[in-house]
């Protein structure tokens, strides 16, 4: 195991470069990396908003399947995107939310305006059918 990793990078930075963006029709899927804090929020906000404008995004899905940490800066990111698409009737969904992230989302009250689904596929189905 150590042999194969040798000379390789020791990937313990969980930066926003980790985040992957996908467009499916007018839906933006944001696949978050390991950590969503203020440091990473800055870049995610910027990139997400570029996608939103360029692709006339209506709905947004946050994929938390790789996420292990989120603080109130992450809540700010979700809320901020909500405000962007709210006026054009867009909806926000979160998918693959683990227990740790779920506690933060619950505590923030975000579930009042955000829909939770088990997977991105289910979320896509629900949002694009509407």
């Amino acid at each position, binding site marked *: 195991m150590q042999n194969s990793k040798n000379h390789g990078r020791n990937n313990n*930075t*969980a930066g926003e470069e980790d985040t992957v963006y996908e467009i499916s029709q007018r839906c933006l899927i944001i696949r978050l990396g390991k*950590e969503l*804090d*203020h*440091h990473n*929020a*800055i870049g995610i*906000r910027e990139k997400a908003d570029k996608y939103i404008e360029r692709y006339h995004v209506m709905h947004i899905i946050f994929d938390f399947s790789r996420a292990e*940490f*989120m*603080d*109130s*800066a992450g*809540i*700010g*990111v979700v*809320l*901020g995107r909500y405000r962007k698409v709210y006026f054009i009737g867009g909806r926000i969904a979160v998918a693959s939310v683990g*227990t*740790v992230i779920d*506690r*933060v989302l619950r*505590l*923030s009250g975000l579930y009042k305006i955000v829909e939770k689904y088990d997977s991105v596929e289910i979320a896509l189905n629900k949002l694009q059918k509407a």
Partner: protein
Amino acid sequence: MKEANTMLLEFESRSQNESFARTVIAAFAASLDPTIEELADIKTAVSEAVTNCIIHGYADNIGIIAMRCSICGNELTVEIEDKGVGIENVEKAMEPLYTSRPELERSGMGFSFMEAFMDDLEVESEPGRGTLVRMKKRLGKPDPLKEYAKETALKGQ
């Protein structure tokens, strides 16, 4: 065995150091053998306090943030301090959803999170002098869900 340990970390108010501070508190608390949830709670609270020093305390300047931690028995105490602008009205600042920087997409939930995830929160601040946040958490508290299960099990006998 009665656990005891203390440490002091001083670091610069750069946003990359938010995850650094979380790693340090997680490593320091490891001897208390926290559950995944307890560890997440502590990391979140520390992340909130450190981010506040960076964004609010020092705004765009680089200043020094001090994190003092101690373990006594099963209790973890964390103090996070900046020598930045300070808070005019602490009571108002601690109100849920209050933020002075909405343009940065701050949600105003920082202090609420610290309160919710730790057992104890104190904030000392003086305008122009800086801010000190003191948080405590007792680890290994009986899990309320498990306690409940035990009770019902006993009743079943």
